[in-house]
């Protein structure tokens, strides 16, 4: 079927506003990751969901960032009170199992003005 789908593809928001980024993983994939890709910074791990286990939130940069995964499928990454340094491409990836290769979405480019 379809690959990992992320929406929106682009988001421009004003500093201080909240944003929600959505990820639809490949059906049947139990693992879901959020990464942030900033210019010159590589891929920064944010959060990892695996099945029904408690998510690994160790990469979230501050308490303004949160994510949930409903019904083991769709995930939403929420950034509250956005700051200019939050501007980046936010990538979602899923895999069939923890050690399977990741399938990446095309990302959401977030620009905070």
């Amino acid at each position: 079927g379809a690959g990992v789908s992320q929406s929106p593809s682009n988001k421009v928001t004003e500093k201080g506003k909240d944003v929600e980024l959505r990820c639809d993983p490949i059906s049947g994939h139990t693992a879901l990751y959020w990464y942030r890709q900033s210019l010159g910074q590589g891929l920064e791990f944010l959060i990892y969901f695996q099945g029904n286990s408690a998510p690994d939130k160790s990469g979230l940069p501050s308490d303004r960032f949160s994510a949930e995964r409903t019904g083991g499928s769709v995930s939403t990454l929420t950034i509250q009170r956005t700051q200019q340094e939050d501007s980046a491409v936010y990538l979602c990836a899923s895999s069939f199992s923890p050690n399977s290769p990741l399938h990446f979405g095309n990302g959401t480019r977030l620009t905070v003005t």
Partner: protein
Amino acid sequence: AQSVSQHNHHVILSEAASLELGCNYSYGGTVNLFWYVQYPGQHLQLLLKYFSGDPLVKGIKGFEAEFIKSKFSFNLRKPSVQWSDTAEYFCAVTGVRGSARQLTFGSGTQLTVLP
């Protein structure tokens, strides 16, 4: 927690030159190792992976990587690069159990191949 270092941030080669991109990881346990590639305007995709067995693994498009456990390295190689190999390359590692299961990426190496 594991970490990954890619020491070359930008590599520029001419076509037909040989390529080696360095990757070192830090983790005390058993690891799975990956190289991902991001071509211009495209999303990340898997190039090759190592789980166990033969430490020399072959991937798509003529790439290979060698796992050297004693050096904590997983360098990517290609004997003769092409212009179409221009992309950003990311090394990644995951532990095989517990809290180390999250996939950690290096900062990436931008490869530019001149025609």
